[in-house]
């Protein structure tokens, strides 16, 4: 039998490396089973995950595995009897996280060995490229993509065929195809998973795109914060080059394409395509004015096409299965599937790929298992710093570019952060503005100073210094920044503020007028209080208070000096009698 350890970044972070080492040691000691790795299956909440295969069949999926479990896993793999590891086998409920998904972009993730081109080929890898190169014209390729309805998965949702066509039609000897793998939204990790788990799928999609537009070089711009993705991509490029898939006269077709990657320097704004191009050229990552669009004058002012990782990850599948098969999934305006990184207060977080048209509620409750600790859901944040909040009342909204935009949020690249009743929406907006204001490239006034001023206003609100008129001032700033900022980063930066004001204005008002935080998250607006009825005078809180703000006699109710209290929350955690509350 084969024992496969899930070694995506999340698996490794949870301890998959140690599990693998332990198994390897047993193997080296003379055990008889095969050991291998795979990428990320997308069930972050169950990592580390180990799969046992019998031939091509998955015999058992083991979750929350630790190095100590290695012996019995090896035992089971050798004996074929899983009685000793029954406690590790994934629960049925958890397994439904996967079974409810439809995987296209992620189809190989967590299944193949991402470090081995043969593993990819065994699942039909590079057949689409061969078909394209040997049997299709570039125009036919673009037509298939057009029929599929594939739209840019980076967030804007622009039809992929249109961009490809524009780049193809653009005059120029030399053209470039660029992959935007600068996935910077907090909480988003779809692209990382694809590169770490299925790098050849990306390469294949890009080569098909390069053929379609007539590019002579394909470049992946990947963020440097993804070291494992870079290692696996580099390895895959090497393997594909050796296999004659990259380089001159690919598969004897006469089509030649160079392929390389470049690691970004950690600037969020480089996810904006023109800033990405500047960075690629070795300049400071600052957006260019459009027009000209990259299709006309992009990298080195030559025709260039840029798509993100997930977009390319769908391409080979579409070629193999036909545009119609892809277009059969989804809604009128949004075709195929979409990958989401489900995080936040949801019970089961991870990667979710589902057909367009599913409701948010389905994703969060049916697949994600609802809210942790049975708390009440308040909202879901879509699209990261450029996106917005969708309140519980709109959870029946379907996943569709238009429908999501109508709420004030956006589809985005796939970040989906679930928030419960303990999340302060003003604080949440402030978090995103803190992010965008720091990540602004500093070029245009609306973004550089505007987001900073918004952050300052939000900060004073959560600190209890909000003033009457602040909400209106924020709205005015938001609208002016949307109109005046130079690039997408600035133009969308107000979205988290606008949507939270739209749906949670009462929370803003509570902070400003009553100086209260309904979610009890804003420390400055809280007062800790000891209920004398409940306090037994155990002195525990007084002893542990880091600022000696609590006083009282043994066996008598204690008191908190509000002037000293720093609201660290230690006393609440310590108190065994639930006597301390924060209001």
């Amino acid at each position, binding site marked *: 039998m084969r024992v496969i350890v899930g070694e995506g970044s999340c698996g490794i972070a949870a301890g998959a490396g140690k599990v693998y080492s332990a198994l390897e040691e047993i193997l080296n000691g003379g055990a008889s089973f095969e050991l291998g790795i795979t990428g990320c299956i997308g069930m972050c909440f169950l990592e580390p995950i180990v799969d046992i295969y019998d031939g091509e069949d998955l015999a058992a999926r083991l979750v929350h595995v630790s190095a100590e479990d290695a012996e019995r896993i090896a035992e089971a793999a050798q004996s074929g009897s899983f009685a000793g590891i029954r406690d590790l086998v994934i629960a049925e409920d958890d397994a439904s996280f996967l079974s409810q998904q439809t995987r296209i972009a992620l189809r190989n993730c967590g299944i193949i060995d991402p470090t081995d081109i043969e593993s990819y080929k065994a699942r039909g890898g590079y057949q689409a490229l061969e078909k394209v190169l040997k049997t299709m014209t570039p125009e036919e390729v673009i037509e298939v993509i057009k029929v599929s309805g594939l739209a840019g998965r980076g967030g804007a949702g622009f039809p992929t065929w249109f961009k490809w066509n524009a780049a193809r039609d653009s005059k120029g000897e030399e053209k470039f195809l660029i992959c935007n793998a600068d996935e910077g939204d907090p909480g988003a990790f779809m692209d990382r998973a694809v590169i770490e788990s299925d790098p050849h799928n990306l390469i294949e999609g890009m080569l098909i795109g390069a053929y379609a537009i007539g590019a002579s070089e394909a470049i992946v711009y990947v963020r440097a914060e993804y070291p494992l993705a870079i290692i696996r991509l580099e390895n895959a490029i090497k393997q594909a080059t050796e296999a004659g898939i990259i380089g001159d006269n690919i598969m004897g077709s006469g089509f030649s394409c160079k392929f390389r990657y470049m690691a970004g320097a950690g*600037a969020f*704004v480089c996810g904006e395509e023109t800033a990405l191009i500047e960075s690629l050229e070795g300049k*400071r990552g*600052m957006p260019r*004015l459009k*027009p000209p669009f990259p299709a006309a004058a992009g990298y080195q002012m030559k025709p260039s096409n840029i798509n993100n990782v997930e977009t390319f990850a769908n391409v080979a599948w579409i070629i193999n299965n036909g545009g119609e098969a892809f277009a059969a999934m989804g809604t009128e305006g949004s075709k195929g599937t979409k990958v989401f990184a489900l995080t936040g207060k949801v019970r089961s977080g991870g990667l979710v790929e589902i057909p367009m048209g599913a409701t948010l509620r389905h994703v969060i409750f049916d697949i994600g298992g609802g809210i942790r600790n049975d708390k009440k859901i308040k909202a879901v944040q879509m699209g990261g710093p450029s996106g917005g909040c969708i309140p519980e009342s709109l959870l029946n909204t379907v996943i569709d570019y238009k429908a999501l935009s109508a709420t004030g949020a956006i589809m985005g690249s796939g970040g989906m952060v679930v928030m419960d009743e303990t999340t302060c929406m003003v604080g949440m907006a402030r978090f995103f503005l803190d992010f965008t*204001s*720091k*990540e*602004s*490239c*500093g*070029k*245009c*006034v*609306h973004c*550089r*100073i*505007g*987001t*900073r*001023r918004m952050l*300052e206003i939000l900060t004073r609100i959560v600190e209890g210094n909000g003033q009457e008129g602040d909400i209106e*001032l924020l709205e*005015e*700033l938001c*609208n*002016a*920044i949307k*109109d*005046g*900022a*130079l690039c997408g980063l600035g133009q969308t930066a107000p979205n988290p503020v606008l949507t939270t004001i739209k749906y949670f204005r009462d929370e803003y008002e509570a902070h400003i007028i009553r100086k209260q935080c309904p979610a009890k998250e804003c420390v400055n607006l809280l007062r800790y209080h000891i209920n004398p009825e409940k306090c037994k005078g155990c002195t525990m809180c007084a002893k542990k208070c880091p600022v000696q703000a609590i006083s009282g006699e043994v066996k008598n109710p204690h008191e908190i000096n509000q002037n000293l209290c720093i609201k660290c929350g230690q006393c609440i955690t310590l108190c065994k009698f639930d006597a301390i509350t924060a209001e």
Partner: protein
Amino acid sequence: MSEIRIIIDGKECIGNQGDTILQIAEKNGVYIPTLCNDESVAHYGACGVCLVEGEGLPKLMRSCSTVVSDGWVLHTDSERVLKARKVALELLMSDHDGDCKGPCSLTCPAGTDCMAYVKEISKGNYHEAVRIIKDKFPLPASIGCVCPHPCEKECRRQYVEAPVSIAYLKRFAGMRDLEKDTWTPEIAPDTGKKVAIIGGGPAGLTAAYHLRVKGHAVTIYDAMDKMGGMLRYGIPEYRLPKEILDAEVKLIEDLGVVMKNGVRIGEDMTFEEIRSSADATILAIGAWESAKIGCAGEDAEGVIGAIEFLRRNITGDPYDIGDNVAVVGGGNAAMDACRSAIRLGAKNVHIIYRRTRDEMPADDEEIEESMEEGVAYDFLTNPVQIVSENGHVKEIKLQVMELGAPDASGRRSPIPIDGQFVVLPVDTVISAIGQRINAKGLDVELNQKGVIVVEEDTFRTNLRDVFGVGDAVHNKTGIAIEAIGDAVRASEVVDSFLKGELKPFKAPFVSIRKDMEKVKAELADREKVMRIQVPKRPAEERKHDFKDIVIQLTDEEVQNEAKRCLECGCHDYGECNLIKCANCQEICPDRLRGEYHPGFVETKLVTIERNQKKCIMCSLCVRTCDEVAQQGILGLVGRGFTTVIKPEFNDPATIAVCKDCHKCADICPTGALKIIG
């Protein structure tokens, strides 16, 4: 190249294929503000000030970079454009940590550019200094003598050691310029419009000067024998030698201003006669009556108002004051009265003031000098009764006071202490507690206090062609430079009125540094240079005559004093494109006030001083250095709000590369870069 036609703000504009909106607008004389664009470098799109809206086009467009399509209909002033631009300008100004003008200039009621003339004085250019002063008013030497200099109270040099002696510098320059080759303005061609000014005091003279310079025919009517108003008849000779005033009045007359003295309205001419003789009439009658003390017995012989007392001394008809004089009041008129009384030979002169010295409105220097001359001060006393004998004052009964809680103005109110009184023997009581307006004969609307009612930003009375300035239009009597300030602003309004469209006065928006603690900290390591003491004749000598008390300083002393100026204002004000844009629509950056981006002033540079605090990150310097000078020395460093332009000039490697071409400083749209070498 094919021609294209578009409409901007309703105006047809013609340009060529490939033109940007900005280019086509410029060709057709339409102004679109922009801060980061210059034809010499590639467009950049940072400032967001040049946004315009196109009909049927969803997004606002940057004029600097958007290539025009034939037939577009654009708006530079739609509500959406104005809002986005307003926010851009407010954001820029909220982060622009610089002063357009020095606090001296902003404080001067007439808006005199003190920093500029002090700088000229430091170089010995008195003529040029006078030109700068006369941009605002025509009496530099006279005002230099008498002004209580609010400018000096705000002078930031006080945070180092003491304010610059601005008023004295002005007096010195003014007097020097009177000696020879006196500066005089050019007069615009005759407009054919006539202006009548009633009252030849500082306000009337200033209004006459400005309106004459603008080409109008101006006549001043004044009740007294000579022009000058209170400068002549209120200020004693020892503070303002009248030959100085005479010389400055003559310069105004030489410009062609007709001066008619001895004309009392209602007696010699009626108001209607004067008004009908001119296209516009300005009332600058001042406040010439002393307020009553308001205590029993004040109708007795020997009680006199300060105004009348001072005037009689000056006109050679001194009042017989006897040995014991009480002056009631604590303002500058009280100072003039008590010091004049000493000079007239009174043995005991007392100031009766109901508060303490700290609350006295009079100039500190005057109080000091009066004390040196022997004036006694009875603080915290208030007259309650004037006792007479044979109809002439004999003594004055004073209620003893103490200070109570501060009032609305922040001054602590005096309250009587029950039963405590002091009696002072007196031969004369001079009332210097305030002045009243006498608008007799003027058929205009007055308020309850008898003050002429004018509209705040037009200075216009209830009569459409009659305007009012100076003390006559204020409830509280002011100082000369305040009346002059009225006249400066009103002359602009009157000029616009004469040209057919009355434009209310609007103070230009200026950038002002808000964080005084930061300013003080920046001045902490300045080398201290003591303020010059203007020498005065010894008290024992000066108290016996009315001659000028000031001893002139030398040129070197004066120039060294002027060199103490910190030059708080911006060298670029006047040229600054940022402030020009900031004034193209109503903005209020204070509502967005927050942190400033990090920045400092570098002076150890090649020959350029770089003030990052004023930098608006338009990157014109970076791009010019790169694209025009082909040096590429500068770049942007950091991210977000804390982005700055670097590398620092003082990096030895950079200094080696820099060719000192000054192109960066020349193109800087604001005062962040200054050529110092």
